[in-house]
């Protein structure tokens, strides 16, 4: 029993180090190849469209609902204290610093990260990645670099958009249901928000984008078996991205809280 438990733990630890080592190796190679010619803009633009433009509807919907929910939940607390005026500032700060970035990253990890793993995984099992190598094309340069760049650039832009939609959701509730004037809501929102809030919120999404790109590409490249393997890799990709994004967010938040209070 104890032997089994030790073996299990050993196996899990080894696979964890194998995974993190693999991700780091892929990331370093992708960073290096990003600056190595030739530079092709077509695959990059195509990926920006898939990551950014195509994600707009779902990000809009989720951000809007989060804004509405947050305003209502905050109102529930603030009305008890008779401090409805704080709703606008609480909604703004919560969304810009935390909810906008994390919700957008999780939505994109589920939508785009899963699609990347499934696509690269299918390419892997049908020998398309081998075929790329035989045609003297580096699969990391050809497949990973455009996805990594698109995710690292589009995720902050999507987050900025989600922040605006979330605040709009809060505004809609406050103005229509809580009798706060539109001018007052906007005034409080912009007065409360500091540049630091926006910066810390957006800066971490660049790293979230990288996490999604490297985890999803790594899982896709390491698919074993046929359709079942692709399914398993896609699940691992989403779960690992979620865990890493939240863990990194926790670390990042603590870092900014203690270093730049």
């Amino acid at each position, binding site marked *: 029993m104890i032997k089994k438990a030790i073996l299990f733990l050993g196996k899990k630890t080894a696979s964890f180090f194998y995974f993190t080592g693999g991700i780091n190796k892929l990331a370093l190679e992708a960073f290096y190849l990003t600056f190595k010619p030739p530079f092709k803009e077509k695959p990059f633009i195509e990926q920006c469209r898939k990551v950014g433009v195509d994600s707009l509807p779902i990000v809009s919907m989720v951000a809007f609902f989060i804004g509405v929910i947050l305003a209502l939940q905050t109102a529930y607390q603030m009305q008890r204290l008779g401090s409805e005026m704080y709703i606008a500032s609480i909604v703004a700060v919560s969304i810009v610093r935390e909810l906008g970035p994390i919700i957008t990253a999780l939505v994109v990890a589920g939508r785009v990260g899963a699609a990347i793993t499934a696509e690269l995984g*299918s*390419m892997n099992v049908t020998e*398309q990645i081998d*075929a790329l*190598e*035989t*045609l*003297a094309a580096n699969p990391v340069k050809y497949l990973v670099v455009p996805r990594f760049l698109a995710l690292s650039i589009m995720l902050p832009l999507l987050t900025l958009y989600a922040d605006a939609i979330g605040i709009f959701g809060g505004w809609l509730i406050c103005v229509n249901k809580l009798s706060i004037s539109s001018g007052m809501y906007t005034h409080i929102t912009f007065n409360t928000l500091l540049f630091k809030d926006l910066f810390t919120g957006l800066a971490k999404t660049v790293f979230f984008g990288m996490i999604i790109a490297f985890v999803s590409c790594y899982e896709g490249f390491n698919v074993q078996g046929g359709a079942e393997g692709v399914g398993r890799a896609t699940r691992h990709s989403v779960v690992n991205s979620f865990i890493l994004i939240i863990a990194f967010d926790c670390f990042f938040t603590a870092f900014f809280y203690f270093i730049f209070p």
Partner: protein
Amino acid sequence: MDMIELRNISKSFESHKVLDDLTLHVKRGSTFVVIGRSGCGKSVLLKHIEGLLKPEAGEIFVDGKSILSMPDADMNSLRMKMGMVFQGGALFDSLTVGENVGFSLIEYSSLTKDQIHGRVEESLKLVGLSGIQELTPSELSGGMRKRVALARAICTNPDIILYDEPTTGVDPITADAINDLIRGLHDKLRVTSIVVTHDMKSAYKIADRIGMLYQGKLIAEGSPEEIQNSGNPFVHQFINGLAQGPITDDIKRTL
């Protein structure tokens, strides 16, 4: 002179030994056919020559150069002189047929769009297809996909072509056309080829030499006539497609 040489190659996947101290010589401009049962390591052998897999032991020489210690840039230049036809075609789903066939020309050559279009059409005509450049691989039948893969391999006029079961899954007429094409590339352009197959009709038609892979080793090698008249019971069972014989006895023994 040997164009491709494998010296004492060994390769295992987990505990299963796929190639076991295998040695192979392919002369420049000749066609070498590797026969053997499915799953005996024929495709693995081809992937070693393309540098997609690394052996645990042994040396691989292509055009006189050892590919195992070769820097990436040199390996890529060598790959430009080689073409590979994968078993399932391995066409890129996200690209059109034209972009697939002209992949190397689009990526690396300075040819204009029209010139590339012309070269692609020429390659497609050689495999009996034309006017399908705008289609995507998902719109093609299995046999057509295989022929497009063949067109992609020959589009850059390579010196070496590696074929992984080029006639499997295509109709007999197309299979014979593919055999003629491989023979033609050999006769006219002196292309060095390694063809992995278990289609004996095809093997006799295209081969200069045939080698049989069994349990990780080349157990027999010779001209098509020598193989046809081989006294080796393993070769005899395989080339005659017999359900009973030493190969099946070996399998029963390991079960």
